[in-house]
C-alpha cells in the first residue's frame, strides 16, 4: 500500500489494527481498574472502567499485609544475581567457543544447540533430586546457581556476536602480550555491550516471570518470589481487587524494563526466534 491507496482501505487498516489493539490492551486496563475498586464496587453491574470511588487501599494491603514488599525484594535479588551470572558465564563460554580451536569445540557447540530441544519436564525431576542431595531445597540456590554455568541461548547469542567482531582485535592484543583472560575482560567484554544488554533483558524477563522453578523449590513464605505470592493469593480466593493489585505490582517492572529496552528485546526475538 502506498500513497495511492484508496482511502477506505487505509481506514480499514486502522480500524482492524485499533480493534485488535483494544483486545490486546483491555486486560491491562481491566486489571488496573479492578485493583482500584472497593469490595462493593467489584461486582457492580454494569461494570465501570473508571472506579467510583477510587480506592488505593488494595495496594497497601497487598504490599504490607500480604507482604508483596518482601516478594518484590526477593524477586529483584534473584533476578539481579541471575543476570550477573548469565552475562558473565555465557560470554565466557561464548568467547572460548569463538576464539579457540580445540578438539571438543564442535562437540560442545552441537550439544549446546541440542540442549535447547530437551524438554524441561524430562530433566525436572532428576534436577530436583540433585538439589535435594545438596540439601538446598527451600533455598534460592537452585534458582541462581545454574545461571552461573551458562545457558545455551545466552551462549549462542554471545557467540554469534563475538564472531562478528574483527579477528585482528584478538591477534594484535596477543602481539601486545595480553593473555586470553585479559583480552576477554579488557577488549571483548566491553565491545559486546549490545549483545550483553539483549541477553540482560531476556534474563530479566525469563527469571522475573518464572513460576515453575520457585513453585518446585520454595516452601517458606518469606522466600517466595512475586509469581508465587500471586499464586498464593489466587489459591486463597481473596477478593478480585486485591488480586488485581498484586497482578499490577508483578506486571509493572517487566513492562518498564520492556519499554526501556524494547529495541534489544524485539531484535533478539526476531534474530533467534526464541524468548530466553
Amino acid at each position, binding site marked *: 500500500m502506498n500513497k495511492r491507496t484508496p482511502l477506505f482501505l487505509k481506514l480499514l487498516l486502522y480500524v482492524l489494527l485499533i480493534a485488535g489493539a483494544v483486545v490486546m490492551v483491555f486486560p491491562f486496563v481491566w486489571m488496573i481498574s479492578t485493583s482500584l475498586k472497593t469490595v462493593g464496587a467489584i461486582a457492580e453491574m454494569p461494570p465501570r472502567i473508571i472506579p467510583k470511588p477510587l480506592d488505593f487501599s488494595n495496594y497497601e494491603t497487598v504490599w504490607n499485609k500480604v507482604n508483596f514488599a518482601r516478594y518484590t525484594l526477593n524477586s529483584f535479588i534473584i533476578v539481579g544475581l541471575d543476570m550477573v551470572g548469565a552475562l558473565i558465564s555465557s560470554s565466557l563460554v561464548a568467547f572460548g567457543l569463538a576464539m579457540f580451536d580445540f578438539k571438543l569445540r564442535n562437540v560442545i557447540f552441537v550439544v549446546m544447540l541440542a540442549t535447547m530441544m530437551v524438554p524441561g*519436564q524430562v530433566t525436572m525431576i532428576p534436577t530436583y533430586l540433585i538439589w535435594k542431595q545438596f540439601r538446598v531445597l527451600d533455598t534460592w540456590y537452585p534458582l541462581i546457581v545454574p545461571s552461573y554455568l551458562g545457558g545455551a541461548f545466552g551462549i549462542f547469542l554471545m557467540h554469534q556476536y563475538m564472531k562478528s567482531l574483527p579477528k585482528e582485535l584478538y591477534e594484535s592484543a596477543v602481539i601486545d602480550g595480553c593473555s586470553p583472560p585479559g583480552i576477554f575482560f579488557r577488549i571483548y567484554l566491553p565491545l559486546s555491550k549490545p549483545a550483553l544488554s539483549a541477553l540482560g533483558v531476556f534474563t530479566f524477563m525469563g527469571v522475573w516471570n518464572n513460576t515453575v522453578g520457585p513453585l518446585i523449590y520454595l516452601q517458606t513464605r518469606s522466600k517466595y518470589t512475586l*509469581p508465587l505470592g500471586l499464586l498464593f493469593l489466587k489459591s486463597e480466593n481473596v477478593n478480585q481487587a486485591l488480586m488485581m493489585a498484586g497482578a499490577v505490582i*508483578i*506486571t509493572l517492572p517487566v513492562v518498564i524494563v520492556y519499554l526501556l529496552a524494547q529495541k534489544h528485546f*524485539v531484535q533478539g526475538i526476531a534474530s533467534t526466534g526464541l524468548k530466553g
Partner: protein
Amino acid sequence: MHNQRHWGYIFTLPFVINVIVFLLFPIVFSAYISFTQYDLFNPPKWIGLTNWINVLKKQEFWLSMRNVSVFALIFVPIQTALAFLIAFLLNQAALRAKSLFRLFYFLPVVTPWLAAGVVWSWMFNYQYGVINWFLGLFGINPVNWLYHKSWVVVITSIALVNVWKGMGQSMVILLAGMQNVPQEVLESAQIDGASGWKQLTHIVFPIVTPMVYMVMILSTISAFQAFDVFLGLFGGITTGISEQVMVPNLTIYRDSFLLFKMGPASATAWLLFFVILAITLFQRYFEKRWVHYE
C-alpha cells in the same frame, strides 16, 4: 582460531559442567526412574516396564493427551493466522504509529503468566465477568468459560488466552521476515495491477514461509508443554482443574511433587517428549510441500 587449546577448555568449563550435571545426568537418571518405583524417601526399586504400561493403560493419560492435542489444534492455527495478519497490516508502508501498535500487540508477551491468568479468569467469571456482561449486551446468555460442563469450551477458552499471550511473539518473527520483502517488488506488482490480496498470496506469503514454519513449530512445542496458562487461570494444580481438562504437564507435576510417584511421572514426561518429537518430525516431513527457501 587460535591454537592455545587449554584456554578453550578453561573458558567453556562452566558450560561443560552444566551439561553433565543438569542435562546428561538428568536425562539418564530420568530414564532410569521411569523403570522404578520411587517415592523420594526409599531407594528406587526396579520394576521394569510397569510404569510405562500403567500410564498407557490409564484413561487419565489419554484424556490429557486428547486435551493438549485439541488445545494445540485450536491455539496454533489461530495464533499463526492472526500473527500473520497483524504483521502484514503493520508492514504496510502507509501506516503511521507502527511502533506504538507493535508495542500494544507485544505487551502480553512480556507479562508474567500469573498476572495474565488472574486477570483473564476474572474477565471469564460467570456472574461478574466483563466478557459475559459484554456478550449480554447483544442478548447472548452467559457462558461458564472456565468451569463449563463441556471440556471443549474450557480448552477453547484457555487456548484463546494463550493466543492473546503468545501472538505478539509470532508477529515479531513474521514481521522481521516481511521486512525482507523488497518494497520495489511490491510496488512494481501494484503497477502491473496485482491486487492487495494477490500481492499477499503470491509475493509476501511465499517469501515468509520459512518464518511461518518456524513460528508454527515453536508454538506447537510450547502448546504441548502448556503449564503456566493453567496455573494462572486456575490458581493451582489440584484446585479447580477438573480431570476432564488436565494436560500432561499438570499430571507430571502433580504425580511427582504432590504425590511423590516419581516413576509414573518420569514415564509420562518421556511419553510427552516422544509425542512432541513425533509431531515435530511430522511437520518437518510436510515442510517441503509448502516452505520455500531461497
